[in-house]
């Protein structure tokens, strides 16, 4: 087996707009043009889907090498091959480059073709831009600025089609806006494996519709909204919430499962309006699941914890941060190491888990674990492990087998051996403890973002930040280190988790030289070989592979 040799990838010479370039065999002409710096407008072509070539927007002028009578390419005065230009335009999306091919993307013929295609596409297009959610990121708007006419020559009545249809629980369809590019149909066939969409009727009466009796309700339906080049498919969740040009876009990743799909969080004035997938071929291609995409509403929930509180007498009263931290530490100091247990979370960032492990070390605590969280996964993106950072917790020594010690923690709390419980981002009721058992604990320090029955039982309550409000890193299920960026500010008096943990540690052991999250990462990277030499900025937007892929 070992002595087999493959031929090196073949490079082909292609002339694009008069300049010769080299591309590997198999490159599509439209991609080659883009790499050469001449973006060819397109609607139906999407590089992650098949090419049906039905929108005709990417028409270009193409030529093949001029052959002499001896079937050898003729060479011009400049020593380069001569090109025989084809008299009619070709679509660049369904054609691979070939040796000696010539392409003109901006010739008068190509320009004229685009103008013609644009005029046809706009014939039946409604004047919905003021109420259309796609306005501002609409390909039809963009290309009609470049190639459209200022006025319509179409005097006849426009074709009426169904509008404002619920295509599924999360997607709204407007057939008048649809330009029949079929990206959504191909996505459902090829990526989501749920072939429910199709075109019916003919000519200008063609409409997109779901198969009778079926709905577009697969867990990847909202990706069709992203790839729709016009406003035909819009997100029911984001519908009429905010115009896209107001949104501040922050690169982040989804923390709803161990896949960690790369995302862009769209926010305005500290309100999150939407999450959209960001291309990363090592993680999520260009897609993400609806479950993860819509899982941000809890950050804006009314049950957010806004104020640190301490137990005084028999009820929780609001306190200043330094008072709450001192109170928590003073309580914990009453107990020996074996009387304390820590429940950490697989939703914490590496920095927070590192500080948690440091806190455990200072306290001498051995009873520390994360709460495993599973759900049905699929073969596309959704992972059965719903904790985004289980691998981080493993790497940083917070847990070896997630959930293995939870039984012992629970039994010891019930049995009275554990007298102080620290719950970081987790609700101990979920591991089987009752509110009464938690209330009976002499010390119960809770750091969380939402209030619940367990937070009511706390002796010290420390409100913290959600994934969009903080910076930090996590390691996804395939061992890729990725970075969270802050998209919005946290609410009320809530603080960044790592700052709370640092303050708890410092209340024990005095100043430790950690002033920023970069300091935490540096300390962590010096101690953990897998993270050696890395920093938050070195992680970059697309992440770094730091662990062996599990499967």
């Amino acid at each position, binding site marked *: 087996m070992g002595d087999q040799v493959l031929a090196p990838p073949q490079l082909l010479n292609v002339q694009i707009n008069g300049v010769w370039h080299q591309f590997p065999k198999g490159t599509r002409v439209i991609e080659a043009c883009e790499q050469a710096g001449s973006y060819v407008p397109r609607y139906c072509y999407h590089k992650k889907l098949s090419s049906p070539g039905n929108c005709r927007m990417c028409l270009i002028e193409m030529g093949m090498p001029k052959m002499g009578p001896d079937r050898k390419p003729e060479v011009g005065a400049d020593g380069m091959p001569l090109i025989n230009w084809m008299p009619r335009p070709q679509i660049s999306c369904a054609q691979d480059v070939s040796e000696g091919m010539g392409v003109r993307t901006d010739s008068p013929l190509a320009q004229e073709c685009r103008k013609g295609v644009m005029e046809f596409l706009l014939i039946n297009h409604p004047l919905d831009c003021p*109420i259309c959610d796609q306005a501002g990121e609409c390909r039809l708007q963009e290309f009609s600025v470049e190639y459209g006419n200022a006025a319509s020559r179409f005097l006849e009545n426009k074709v009426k089609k169904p*509008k*404002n249809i619920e295509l599924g629980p999360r997607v709204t369809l407007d057939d008048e806006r649809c330009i029949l590019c079929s990206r959504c149909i191909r996505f459902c066939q090829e990526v989501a494996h749920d072939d429910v969409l199709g075109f019916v009727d003919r000519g200008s009466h063609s409409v997109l519709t779901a198969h009778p009796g079926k709905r577009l309700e697969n867990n990847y339906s909202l990706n069709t909204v992203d790839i729709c080049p016009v406003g035909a498919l819009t997100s029911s969740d984001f519908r*009429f919430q905010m*115009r896209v040009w107001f949104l501040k876009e922050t690169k982040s990743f989804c923390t709803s499962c161990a896949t960690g799909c790369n995302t862009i969080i769209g926010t305005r004035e500290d309100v999150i309006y939407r999450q959209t997938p960001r291309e990363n071929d090592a993680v999520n291609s260009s897609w993400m699941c609806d479950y993860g995409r819509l899982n941000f509403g809890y950050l804006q929930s009314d049950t957010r914890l806004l104020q640190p509180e301490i137990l005084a007498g028999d009820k929780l009263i609001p306190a200043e941060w330094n008072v709450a931290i001192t109170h928590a530490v003073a309580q914990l100091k009453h107990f020996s190491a074996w009387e304390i247990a820590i429940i950490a979370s697989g939703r914490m960032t590496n920095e927070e888990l590192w500080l948690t492990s440091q806190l455990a070390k200072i306290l001498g605590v051995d009873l520390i674990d994360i709460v495993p969280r599973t759900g049905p996964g699929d073969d596309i993106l959704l992972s059965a492990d719903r904790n985004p950072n289980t691998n981080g917790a493993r790497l940083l020594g917070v847990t070896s087998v997630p959930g293995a010690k939870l039984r012992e923690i629970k039994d010891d709390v019930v049995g009275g051996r554990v007298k102080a419980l620290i719950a970081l981002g987790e609700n101990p009721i979920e591991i089987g403890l009752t509110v009464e058992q938690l209330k009976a604990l002499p010390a119960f320090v809770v750091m969380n973002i939402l209030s619940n029955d367990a937070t009511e039982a706390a002796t010290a309550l420390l409100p913290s930040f959600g994934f969009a409000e903080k910076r930090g890193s996590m390691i996804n299920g395939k061992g890729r280190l990725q970075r969270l960026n802050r998209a919005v500010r946290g609410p009320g008096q809530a603080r960044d988790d790592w700052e709370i943990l640092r303050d708890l540690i410092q209340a024990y052991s005095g100043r430790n030289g950690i002033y920023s999250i970069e300091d935490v990462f540096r300390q962590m990277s010096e101690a953990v070989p897998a993270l050696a030499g890395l920093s938050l900025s070195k992680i970059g937007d697309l992440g770094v592979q730091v662990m062996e892929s599990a499967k």
Partner: protein
Amino acid sequence: MAITVARPNLTFRERLYLPAILSGLAITMKHFKNMLLGRTKVTMQYPEEKWDSHLPEHYRGAPALVRDETGRVRCVACQLCEFICPPRAIKIVPGEIPAADRFAKVEKFPNEFDIDMIRCIYCGLCEEVCPEQAIYLRKDYAITGFTRADMVHNKEKLLEIGGVMHGVVLKWNEKK
């Protein structure tokens, strides 16, 4: 580069200075005489007298929302005015028109529409940018209030100032 300004060459009469003073004084005395005889009136007695009848056609006063002939609030909450507004005086919360409403075809309407008249600079860019001809600068200029909240015109107030605008915006017509 410095620009050299040529000094004027004054005549003898100009250099005397007194003739100019006297001719100016003569004009003043003429106005004084006319005032005494009640022939001219210079001061407008605002606020008893109002500017309203003197305002030019192109006057830019308070921005306001208008309804069309059928009673529909023309604004569809596209938020272009909010975007263009230089002092960021406009705040819109869009909403969806329920399917049972007679204007359901329009789909979108402003749930809330606030213009902070302390911020407004009466530039008229909102009127210019509006694709639905829904916001106009009216001739109201005396915008007053006792509190900052008084100075925020909400949707009701804006529609009250705006009134009904006749004109052709047929695009939301059922037949269109």
